[in-house]
């Protein structure tokens, strides 16, 4: 069920108009700000995410790094990615990036999804999966430029971070933000978070991080999770944060021209053969044929 406290903006695989669209909430765009420069990698946000969403902590692995959890999972939506990056001047940067759904303004998952109501985008910018309607086709995985959605192999449903839409709908901040001990996570309106992020980036530039900047990629219409990076010129070094994420062009082709051309061609095909019947009728066999 879509959150009744949030106004719906877009619904996946949905023909015609949206639902009622009436919600009590004043719809301004929300945003989570992640300041990678003050993250200490404590993983409190990971635990808070599991606790709020009701998932068990998973078994950890050890490969001589702080990456004790190799990847996000269907029931592990939020992961600090540790990267020991060697800079061109020979120094080392130990980069930590909290990875989760970015809640794109132009979400590729919703674009690709064929299941009516399985993905909902709210007016406040949150992109939410409704597993009740998910059919497990994983087209969303193909559409996502951040490689976020994960399949639960036993239920064949896809899951990802909801930006705690249930908490936000009730006027609370997301669980991860609530748990952060260093204040590297902030939550508020997109406008305010952009302002805070730019302020922090300016401060960083003054303090010697001349490439510091804000990550709010325009290729997906901006995101409702934004980063402050020490080096915004090279986001890839933060464990593969894409420099210019976009919805794959072939997904756009598939969901727009191919779909409409295909629909029109099928209709014309059926209309064409019916018109042929009206104009030329059936092929009748002359009974005298055999004697010819």
């Amino acid at each position, binding site marked *: 069920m879509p959150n009744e406290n949030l106004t719906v903006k877009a619904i996946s*695989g*949905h*023909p015609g108009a949206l639902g009622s669209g009436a919600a009590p909430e004043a719809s301004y765009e929300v945003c989570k700000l992640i300041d990678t420069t003050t993250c200490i990698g404590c993983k409190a946000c990971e635990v808070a995410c599991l606790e709020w969403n009701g998932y068990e902590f998973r078994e950890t692995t050890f490969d001589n790094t702080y990456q004790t959890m190799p990847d996000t999972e269907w029931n592990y939506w939020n992961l600090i990615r540790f990267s020991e990056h060697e800079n061109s001047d020979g120094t080392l940067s130990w980069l930590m990036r909290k990875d989760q759904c970015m809640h794109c303004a132009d979400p590729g998952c919703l674009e*690709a999804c*064929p*299941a*009516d109501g399985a993905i909902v985008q709210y007016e406040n910018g949150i992109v939410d999966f409704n597993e009740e*309607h998910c*059919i*497990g*086709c*994983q*087209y969303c*995985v*193909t*559409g996502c430029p951040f*490689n976020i959605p994960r*399949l639960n*192999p036993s239920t*064949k449903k896809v899951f990802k971070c909801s930006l705690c839409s249930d908490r936000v709908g009730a006027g609370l901040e997301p669980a991860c933000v609530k748990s952060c001990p260093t204040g590297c996570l902030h939550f508020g309106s997109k406008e305010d978070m952009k302002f805070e992020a730019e302020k922090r980036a300016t401060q960083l530039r003054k303090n010697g991080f001349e490439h510091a900047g804000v990550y709010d990629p325009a290729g997906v219409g901006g995101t409702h999770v934004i980063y402050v990076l020490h080096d915004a010129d090279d986001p890839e070094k933060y464990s593969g944060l894409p420099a210019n994420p976009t919805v*794959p*062009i*072939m*997904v756009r*082709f*598939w969901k727009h021209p*191919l*779909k409409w051309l*295909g*629909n029109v*061609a*099928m209709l014309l*095909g*059926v209309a064409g*053969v*019916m018109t*042929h*019947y009206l104009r*030329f*009728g*059936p*092929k*009748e*066999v*002359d*009974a005298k*044929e*055999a004697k*010819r």
Partner: protein
Amino acid sequence: MSTQTAAALPEGAITPSGEIVRYTYKERLCHWTNGVTYVFCLCTGLAFYSPYLYWLSVVGGGPMAARMLHPWVGVFFYLAVVWMHTMWKQQMASIPEDQQWKDKIKDYVENNDDAVPPQGRFNAGQKLFYWVMYYGALVLLITGILMWFPEKWRGLHGIMSVVNPLHAAAALATIGAFIIHVYMGILMVSGGFEGITKGTVTKEWAQHHHRLWYDKMTRR
């Protein structure tokens, strides 16, 4: 002989009522295995293709069940295509008469059948339909297996954005052919539907549409 029903006679046999066997029992069974599995995949596939056709997933028992069954039935469709190929591969090969038919396609479409040259068991149009389905099924199978368990090859993440539309495009090509096939089989070519259901056609029908085949069958 008297115990053998008309439905089980070999190709070209003349039934007691004077009709000729156009398709044997095995050929009809194969054709309808193809037909039923294809239509299932068509309906469930169209459901995932367009939001306006999502209701078609009811054919598969609802959206979730349709997503589960579509690939399985698709595999059976492909097996049915392979089965048909073992029977009809040679008969579907191109022969010189096909070009004569193609030259007269306008007369064929406008039902000026007297102007159309005599044809063998399958005319060039039927052969074209066959090969569209044959190669379409191959593309659908390969892309379909990749789409079945994308979680098993997450490394192909980038390629899937091409695989998905390719599956849809191959399906659309077969749908175009299928619309014409169903129209001709049921409405345009009177008597054709009986040929592929009960298996027999009248001698006049055989001579009119497939004279070379009729002559070959009755010469023995």
